[in-house]
Structures are given as C-alpha cells and as structure tokens.
C-alpha cells in the first residue's frame, strides 16, 4: 500500500533521466558562469576603486549589473533546483505574489537610510566631518597590499 501522503498528489512528476540530467547540467553550468561573471565584476569594481579618481557612476552601474545577475541566479535555483517552475500556477502565485512585498520593502528602507544620512549631514556637522572620508583618500587606497595583520 502506498503511504497516504503519496496519494494526496494527483500527478507525479516523472522526468526521464536524459532530460533531467541535461537540465541539471545546463543549470549548473549557467549558475557557475553567472558566478564567475559576478566575481569578475567584483574585481573590476576593486580595480576602479584603486584608480586615481574612481568613477562612481561606473561603479554603481557595475553594482546594478551584479544585482541583476544575482536575481537571475535566484530564478534558476528556485525554478529548476526547487522545481517551482514545474508546480501548478496557483501554487506558484501563493509564493511569488507575497514576495512582491520586497519591492516596497527594499525601496522604502533604502530611501529611509539615505534620507537619515542627508538629515544628519545637514543638522549634525560633527557627524559629517568625522565620518566623511577626506578628499583624495580614495586614491590613497591604491596601496592596497596586504593590510597588516596576523594570519
């Protein structure tokens, strides 16, 4: 006799081995490639910061790219590895729709942090003077060899 929990499910997913292994292999390679690209961008950002006058806009653009690549990775993990892509649409929606809250969540709180910084810089000059890195310190960071420290 089958266990009751098994009978609760009407249609069992049966993928044949070939399609399955192909899909897993493809996803693994995709995830690895995306990770390597992310690491490359991380190193590009590091090198831009080392330069004489870091182009903040360029850094921001690269950071945005990493965020998009991360979302792509998350999509592949959830949809292929966790099989959410194979589930019934209604079920997928009960997971995905609540997660849309994150759009507000991220925007509102990042905005709030930024506004707090601006307010403090306006009204608390001591905070601004003691925490803002002096001009020209950006390229001081170019001697970025090992920071002294014990292993």
């Amino acid at each position, binding site marked *: *006799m089958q*266990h*009751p*929990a*098994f*009978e*609760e*499910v*009407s*249609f069992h997913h049966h993928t044949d081995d070939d399609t*399955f292994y192909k899909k*897993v292999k493809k996803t*693994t390679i995709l995830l*690895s490639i995306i*990770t390597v690209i*992310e*690491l490359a961008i*991380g*190193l590009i950002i*590091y090198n831009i*910061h080392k330069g004489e006058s870091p182009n903040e806009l360029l850094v921001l653009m690269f*950071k945005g790219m*990493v965020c998009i690549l*991360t979302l792509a*990775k*998350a999509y592949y*993990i959830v949809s292929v*590895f*966790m099989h959410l892509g194979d*589930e*019934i649409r209604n*079920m997928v929606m*009960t*997971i995905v729709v*609540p*997660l849309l*809250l994150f759009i507000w*969540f991220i925007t509102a*709180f*990042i905005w*709030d*942090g930024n506004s*707090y*910084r601006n307010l*403090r*810089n306006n009204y608390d000059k001591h905070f601004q003077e003691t*925490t*803002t*890195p*002096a001009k020209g310190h950006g390229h*001081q*960071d170019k001697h*970025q*060899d*090992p*920071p*002294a*420290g*014990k*292993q």
Partner: protein
Amino acid sequence: MATTAQVHQTKWWSGGKSPFNLEYGKLMMWYFLMSDAFTFGAFLISYGTIRFSQNFWPDPNVVFNAFPGAGHANLPLAFVSVMTFILIISSVTMVLAVHAGHKNDKAGVVKWLGWTIVGGAAFLGCQAWEWHHLITGEHAVLVDGQIDLIGQTMRANPWGSLVPHESVAAALQKTPHETLVALAHQSNHALSHEQLAAMTDQQLVNTINIDALHVRSKGPVAFGGYFYGITGFHGFHVFSGVVINIVMLKMTQNNVFQNRGHYLMIEKAGLYWHFVDLVWVFVFLCFYLI
C-alpha cells in the same frame, strides 16, 4: 469520498487530493521558506538601510582578502568564491539525491545525500576559518591619537579610511610600548619578540615601515554586528540543514523510506537545502560584491 478518507485515516484537504498537487508537508515547507525569506530579507534590508545612512562604508575587497595558507597575500574575493562554489555544488548533489528518490533508488539517495552533507560541512569549516581570521587578525588603527591593534569584532571595526602618513608618524610617538613591539614584529621578522621588547620606543618607531602599516581610522561599528549576525544566521541554517540531511541519510539507510514506498521526505529536506543556497546568493551579493 468519506469512505476513501476513512480507509487511510486521513485528515487532509477534504477531497483527499491536494488542489496544488503537492502533499501537505511540502506545501508547508514552501510557506515556511517564504516566511524565512522575509526574515533574511528584513535582516539584509536593515543592513542596507544602515549602510545608506553612513558616509563611509568599508570596501569588501579590503576586508575579505585572505585565503587559508596564503599568509598575507592580497586575494580579494578568492576565498568567498570557493565557499560559493561549494554551496552551488552541494545544491546540485541534493538535486541528484532527490532525483534518485523519485526512482526509489536507495543507493543513489545515500550516495548523493552523503556528498551534500560533505559540502555543507566544508562550507561550515570555511565560515569558521573566515570568522576566526576576522576576529583574531589585528589591524593598526588610529584611536585617540595613538595606534591601536584591533580585530573585526561586534564592538570595533578596523576598516575606516586610510590615515595620512604625517598623522601616523605623530601617532606612533604616543603609542604604548607593547603595541610598538607588535607593530615592529610585523615588519621585522629578523628580530625575536624579546629582542624587540628590549628596544626603546624611539628605536622601535625607527624599525617600523609606515608605508607597509596601512593605518586606518575606525570604521562603522554596525559592520561587525550585521556581518556576524547575518552570516551567522545563514551559517546556522547551513548547520541545521546538515543535521536534517544526516537524519535523512540515517532514515534512508534504515529503509524507512523504502518501506514507506516513497522518498517525499528527501524532497522537503532538498527544498530546505536549496533555500540555504538561495540565501547565500544574496548574502554573497550584499556583503562581498557590492
């Protein structure tokens, strides 16, 4: 309807069939993971809020540049990419374990679950090394006009902006003897600790190479709390995932699932494990990449 339900003593959804074509346990695992995603999301967003409220934040490539066995070599992103790949590969082996379960292939489940556990343990080992390195590694920091050696803890952050040479030279004059000995020891391995300790402060200052010292001001304290808090919470998830996988492995070996006729339990453990990998993708993004 009622008769079929009575036969199996079931209390599930009254039709006896899941409208989502998922068994109750797996569906609830999904909802648990969704709530857990909000917990992690709240932590990471709070970190983002604090970071945006600061004028200065440490560059991750400066903080995370060590590799086990590589001494003081500057290797930004290297170790964390190893950790990331370990977790991705362990996620792949988990997919293979779940697939073996679909086919009621006990040997396959044992094999792939075993590798997943190995991957999880390896990740935890890496994290332990990283934390230990950050906490015990001491860095020269300018505090109240003198040089202090501090590690990355919950109370202090040694990764502020670089201090100009003139200030370092002035600060060295006011730095206590023991700190000078430690600083001199870093740049001069020829002399023993005792020999250095016997020198006068001025002699010690002369042996110290200011260029190699990289003295920084104190960085934002919140960095440590967020880093250890969030990676620790993730590490705890990895740890509980490894424990769950070990229980699943034991149950498989004891033929529990074989007798039950299905390996749905492995799928639930698999969902949890993939979630751990999923969270790491975002932790990796927020702490190491941007």
